[in-house]
């Protein structure tokens, strides 16, 4: 397809401000007369708060809030499900703490130093309760319980055995399926808690306004959900709450919800009656959220001719102390599993369990990297045990074009209309030299190389033909200025991946306006329609989908105004771009001489008082097309030290039309580094006695890959499949989360190919490798 701006590499709109250090992030916001806040956080994993004495802190001149001084409102930080499906267990400040590091009180003062000292002067009397730190122990009848009751929507719900929620799905007759299988392969997988490690720590600034309202600057992926939840908690009219859209210093899911520190800061500001700024220290931030861990039992039945006939997956998620949408998480996990391969008859049992740990939340993939690690490792195990080629086995069974895709679980389904799986596996195999791959037995010596493959996908958005349990739509406002430039007002947060540029490009493409004449306005909740969230890899597909939908209406309006001026039928007019004078014109089809620039149309519309050429609307995508990926990773294992290097990686993506090819590549390579972190380095564990984080909150002991852990530039190859998604803006789908999903499995599969040892748990550290090698761990085959 021939596009004017789509697919071109153009400088990102916020690039200049970012390289100059001038792009404001929430942590850079300064409001006159603001106070600085700090939170007091629990030292105990589980305790009742008997008494909090703030008198000394107050005598130091600080403003304090305690659980009794904030609205007694029970909420779930993440509001993307419909209310009846939202489980709520969280308070602004709790009277009972359920994990080390949970905030119990907060202090604001003129300087951060004073606030900190005042916080230290607060005296808390605890009644320490027994805690439970292991999810399986938590379900035992004698285990300490975190909650007696929580809310489902507005209904009270009893909690039994710390089970937060469950999801059991059966399709067809799995027992019959297994009975017909020639081979049945069963394994257990274990994926850790890891920390998002976004570079900007969570932040909020709240300014009380003269009209009784508040203005908020915060790290978030969703300004509108922040506003709505604050409205509920503080019983404020939404018209009096304004949340500003800002750049965010990375998120990866860490600010997918209205972070719990936001209402704390609001409560402080309302009490102090002046603006308050609360910036998490890194150690507070680590105690706020982790990626959902998972223990997965997977059983798959296959026939001799490599056809899958049945599957059974049991998932246990240790969600920690609060539900940040663990119910939809389980739904999604069932969907990620159901949509990878045609299992025929299958079962999914998912259980989310409370423990006295930092709450789990979405982190790039929302359960998908966990499920993908299990399934894609399993595919390799089966291929090895049954003697299939891992690639052919996958191609024989994958869910592809024409199949039903369960984007976000059983309630969000759509039919796949574009798919590059076969192309990617074929090209990837060729690039990595798959045909020369030898089995691990053929390898000797200290350093052993191996090649692994894994494939995956993510949904693009959570839309479907029928609205499910998940809210999904977006909005945009587009305005033609009187000089032919264009303003775009979009509520969609750009987390750094280039959603903003994509929006500009889509508008520019449709209206035939050059990229540099379209700007993204600085907006907030007051000036934009609703957008649910930059999550579910929906920024491009849904966010740009809405922008396209609005741009089409702007085009109609433009043509209509032009038809009055040119005295022609709107149907006979069209838009085109004139490169010579860098102008967009409206002209009579097939008679370009009769034309007028869009700037002139807008100007005349103003002079004649016809009005501004602007449209504001919302749009819901009615599909959720999967964006597919494949990873071919080469490892080199030092069998004497267990140290693994990655000499080569091939990253393949089917994201439909690549709107921003450079950003798409950036997403894939960035995900490679986070995926390698997940596979080999990261784990945020607790001391099983005290419930404290082993790293103590410091990243010194929570390492992520540095520039030296990545393969060299020339050894990372990126490939885009040639697909076009008919339902996407100019053929585009998403990429964001997909890019990560199969990295860890490809890595584990490569290690197996190198040394013949299968790892069912990440991170695959040198310690674990050496232990397995020395202990003669179950070497398969």
């Amino acid at each position: 397809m021939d596009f004017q701006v789509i697919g071109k590499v153009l400088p990102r709109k916020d690039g200049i401000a970012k390289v100059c250090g001038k792009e404001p992030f929430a942590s850079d916001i300064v409001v006159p007369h603001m106070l600085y806040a700090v939170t007091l956080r629990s030292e105990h994993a589980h305790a009742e708060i008997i008494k909090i004495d703030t008198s000394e802190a107050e005598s130091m001149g600080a403003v304090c809030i305690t659980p009794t001084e904030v609205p007694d409102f029970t909420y779930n930080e993440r509001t993307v499900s419909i209310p009846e499906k939202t489980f709520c267990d969280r308070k602004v400040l709790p009277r009972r703490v359920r994990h080390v590091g949970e905030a119990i009180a907060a202090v604001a003062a003129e300087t951060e130093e004073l606030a900190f000292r005042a916080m230290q002067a607060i005296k808390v009397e605890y009644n320490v309760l027994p805690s439970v730190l292991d999810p399986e122990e938590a379900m035992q009848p004698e285990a300490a319980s975190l909650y007696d009751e929580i809310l489902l929507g507005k209904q009270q719900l009893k909690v039994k055995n710390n089970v937060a929620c469950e999801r059991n799905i059966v399709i067809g007759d799995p027992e019959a399926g297994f009975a017909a299988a020639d081979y049945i392969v069963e394994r257990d997988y274990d994926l850790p808690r890891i920390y998002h490690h976004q570079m900007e720590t969570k932040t909020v600034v709240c300014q009380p306004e003269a009209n009784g309202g508040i203005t908020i600057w915060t790290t978030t992926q969703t300004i509108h959900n922040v506003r709505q939840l604050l409205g509920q908690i503080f019983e404020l009219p939404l018209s009096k709450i304004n949340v500003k859209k800002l750049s965010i210093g990375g998120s990866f899911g860490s600010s997918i919800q209205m972070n719990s520190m936001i209402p704390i800061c609001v409560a402080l500001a309302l009490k102090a009656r002046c603006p308050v700024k609360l910036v998490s220290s890194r150690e507070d931030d680590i105690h706020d959220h982790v990626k959902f861990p998972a223990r997965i039992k997977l059983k798959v039945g296959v026939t001799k001719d490599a056809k899958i006939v049945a599957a059974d997956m049991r998932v246990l998620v240790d969600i920690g102390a609060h539900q940040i949408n663990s119910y939809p998480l389980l739904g999604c996990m069932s969907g990620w599993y159901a949509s990878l391969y045609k299992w025929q008859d299958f079962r999914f049992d998912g259980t989310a369990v409370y423990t006295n740990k930092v709450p789990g939340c979405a982190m790039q993939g929302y359960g998908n990297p966990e499920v993908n690690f299990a399934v894609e490792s399993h595919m390799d195990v089966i291929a090895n045990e049954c003697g299939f080629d891992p690639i052919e086995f996958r191609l024989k069974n994958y869910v592809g074009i024409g199949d039903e895709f369960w984007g976000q679980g059983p309630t969000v389904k759509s039919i796949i209309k574009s798919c590059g799986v076969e192309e990617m596996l074929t090209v990837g195999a060729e690039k990595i030299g798959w045909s020369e791959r030898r089995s691990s037995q053929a390898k000797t010596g200290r350093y052993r190389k191996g090649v692994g493959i894994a494939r995956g996908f993510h949904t693009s958005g959570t839309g479907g033909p029928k609205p499910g349990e998940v809210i999904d739509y977006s909005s945009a406002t587009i305005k033609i200025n009187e000089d032919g430039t264009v303003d775009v007002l979009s509520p969609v947060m750009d987390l750094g991946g280039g959603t903003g540029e994509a929006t500009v490009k889509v508008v520019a493409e449709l209206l035939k306006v050059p990229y540099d004449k379209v700007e993204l306005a600085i907006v907030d909740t007051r000036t934009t329609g609703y957008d649910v969230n930059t999550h579910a890899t929906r920024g491009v597909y849904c966010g740009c989908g809405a922008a396209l939908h609005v741009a089409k209406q702007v085009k109609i309006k433009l043509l209509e105004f032009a038809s009055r001026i040119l005295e022609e039928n709107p149907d006979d007019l069209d838009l085109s771009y004139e490169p010579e004078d860098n102008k967009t014109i409206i002209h009579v089809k097939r008679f370009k001489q009769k034309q007028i620039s869009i700037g002139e149309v807008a100007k005349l519309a103003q002079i004649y008082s016809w009005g501004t050429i602007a449209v504001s609307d919302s749009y819901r995508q009615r599909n959720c097309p999967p964006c597919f990926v494949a990873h071919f990773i080469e490892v080199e294992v030092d069998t004497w030290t267990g140290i693994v290097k990655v000499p080569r990686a091939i990253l393949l993506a089917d994201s439909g039309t690549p709107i921003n090819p450079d950003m798409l590549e950036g997403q894939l390579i960035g995900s490679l580094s986070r995926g390698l972190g997940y596979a080999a380095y990261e784990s945020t564990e607790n001391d099983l006695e005290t419930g404290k984080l082993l790293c103590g909150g410091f990243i010194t002991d929570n390492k992520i890959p540095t520039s030296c852990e990545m393969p060299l530039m020339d050894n990372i190859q990126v490939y885009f499949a040639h697909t076009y998604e008919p339902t996407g803006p100019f053929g585009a789908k998403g990429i964001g989360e997909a890019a990560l999903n199969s990295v860890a499995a490809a890595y584990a599969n490569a290690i197996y190919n190198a040394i013949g040892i299968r790892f069912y748990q990440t991170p695959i550290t040198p310690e674990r490798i050496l232990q397995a090698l020395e202990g003669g761990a179950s070497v398969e085959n």
Partner: protein
Amino acid sequence: MKTNTKILTSEFEYLECPTLAEALNCLSKYNGKAKILAGGTDLLIKMKSGLLQCQYLIFVKKIEALNYLISDKKTLRIGPMINLRSIEKNEQVKAYYSALFEAVRSMAATSVKNMATIGGNLCNGSPAADTAPPLLVYGATLKLSSMRGDRIVPVEEFFLGPSQTVLESDELLTEICLPDLGDQVGSSFLKLGRVSADIAKINVAVCLNRNGKTVGNCRIAFGSVAPTPIRIPEAEEILKGQEMSDELIVKAAKAAAGLIKPITDKRSTNSYRQQVSKVILEEGIRSAWQRAGGEL
């Protein structure tokens, strides 16, 4: 949680001492109540995380007279205030003191090394301090000065335990001296970390002299396997006076691995440390031998 790494909450009086005399004077005057601040890359973190407090902070990094690296004839004298990056970039160090060079190269990252001093690395007393094993194998001595006078302490006697050294509270480390290493000398340093910029899971340094085909003098030191950086004399003895061979290296490394008693901590496990100690020591001996002109 009682820390906030965004700010430094503890209060103290700041004393800047541009000369050695002033620094010693302040140390004596505020004996026990003062702490020495050099690059601050250990000290400020300890203060931020609430592990350490003091009434006075004496800033010594700007004492120009203690910021040097002089190699005269065959000895090397290092001023404790020199930063790690300057040591890394020094041609003399790179050419003749491979273990020290490799240690410094492996440490932290550029910015930390621009700030951090070698004196601070030693005086901080970490069992994982990367410059310690090289200085141990070079047989370095440390000059500790106070108003009461100077004393010379071999590095071997300097470390007492984690964060503990023989430094008295009024003393300042004022010089690190590397003796004549003799002829046909070679040294090496190896380290394993979790990622490339990390404190050691384990590190090792080797320095040996070659007499034709046999090993002359030889020293081996490990870090991060005991409460202090330690030498392994038993393994050294296995090598000394023997004809160099692969078998000999393996024998010495195996013996060393059997002697260390590392612990499990946040960075690694005791068994891993034990296993890889052998591997890195073998490699260390090999490259030291080759650098001494030996063949294998």
